[in-house]
């Protein structure tokens, strides 16, 4: 995962040094000589908790998850990883170049969250993020069903993203208060990014629902396809009960009211109704997946399994 190529729209990709210093790309010329190749804007890596920092904390022993915390990190990491893989499929296929990059950015945000969560989860038994992503089998993945749902058309992807972003925002907001400092740290970084994902998908829900007859019909269809998988996100189980009791996480059911209220506001503005559909049985948290996950894993894992240790 650390070798994933990034799509880029800005000139000359910065050489990622991995450090936190000023990358100084495109800034040299801006100082005075005014070369035509100078970037008009200044590029810096910024300061934030990175997956590499977590991997380092885990390997040095300064952060170690309990068995329960590792399991919840695995769930959240798998959610983000499978969604990133799904969204990545849009790259070069979105309706417009600009939207292509927007979806690619969201995919990369999710991949970043996945790397952080999986790096931490692996701290339990010494497995790396790559071990967990590339060398587990289908029934060992703990992602909920909504994340593996096919992209469908653009409206289906937006419906899925809308649900996921509002769910993740509520969840990560709560996890910033976790008694587990690493979970809280990952959530604090992720919640800001997911906040933008909410805005992006809500903007598109409003535009598709309020656009042409055809776009409205597709948005309604998108929600109808996705809504059966909403319930599973908010189901409690023994793990979440224990984590909630210890203060490391929250019961998913406690997030539902705020999710309903905020998504309801967008539905009202878009003049859409919350779909009345029978909830799907789910089972992803126990490793029971639909036929879709196997294909996703086959594509995602093939290179790492064919050429173990490959780098490029």
């Amino acid at each position, binding site marked *: 995962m650390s070798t994933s190529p990034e799509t880029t729209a*800005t000139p000359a990709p910065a050489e990622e040094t991995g450090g936190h210093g000023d990358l100084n790309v495109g800034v040299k010329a801006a100082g005075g000589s005014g070369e035509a190749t100078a970037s*008009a804007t200044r590029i*810096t*890596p910024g300061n934030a908790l990175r997956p590499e920092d977590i991997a380092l904390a885990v390997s040095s022993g300064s952060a170690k998850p309990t068995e329960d915390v590792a399991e919840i990190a695995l769930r959240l990491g798998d959610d983000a990883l499978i969604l990133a893989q799904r969204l990545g499929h849009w790259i070069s296929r979105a309706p*417009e170049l*600009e939207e292509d*990059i927007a979806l690619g950015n969201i995919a990369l945000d999710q991949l970043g969250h996945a790397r952080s969560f999986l790096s931490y989860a692996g701290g339990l038994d010494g497995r790396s993020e790559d071990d967990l992503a590339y060398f587990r089998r289908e029934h060992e993945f703990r992602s909920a069903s909504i994340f593996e749902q096919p992209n469908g058309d653009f409206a289906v992807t937006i419906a899925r993203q809308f649900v996921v972003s509002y769910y993740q925002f509520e969840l990560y907001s709560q996890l910033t208060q976790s008694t587990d400092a690493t979970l809280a740290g990952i959530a604090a970084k992720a919640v800001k990014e997911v906040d*933008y994902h909410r805005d992006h998908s809500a*903007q598109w829900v409003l535009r598709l629902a309020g656009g042409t007859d055809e776009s409205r019909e597709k948005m309604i269809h998108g929600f109808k396809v996705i809504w059966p998988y909403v319930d599973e996100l908010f189901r409690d189980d023994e793990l979440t009960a224990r984590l909630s009791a210890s203060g490391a996480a929250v019961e998913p059911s406690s997030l539902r009211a705020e999710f309903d209220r905020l998504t309801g506001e967008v539905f009202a503005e878009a003049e859409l109704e919350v779909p009345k559909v029978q909830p799907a049985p789910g089972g992803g948290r126990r490793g029971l997946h639909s036929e879709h996950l196997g294909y996703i894993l086959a594509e995602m894992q093939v290179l790492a399994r064919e050429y173990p240790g490959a780098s490029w």
Partner: protein
Amino acid sequence: MTTPEPHAGNVWPIWEVFVRSSRGLSHVHAGSLHAPDAAMALRNARDLYTRRNEGVSIWVVPADAIASSDPDSKGAFFESPQGKDYRHATYYTKSEGVKHL
């Protein structure tokens, strides 16, 4: 701000993007993009032009709304000031007794 009319063939209109890299500096032209309206143009600009931490503020302007000088009239437009040294302060000799110049 008015949203420009969509162009023929249902292509999103073009917007010019200006990014301010930090407080106290001016917004600088960073490039252009397509977007259906101003709100989405801002979001697309965020995704395209600030993904490496380049900005603290973005302006988007419909490309149609920008009037530009004619490149063919460079001579008439821009060459006239050449040779007019007296428009620069350095042309003048300092008068005696004037301080702080």
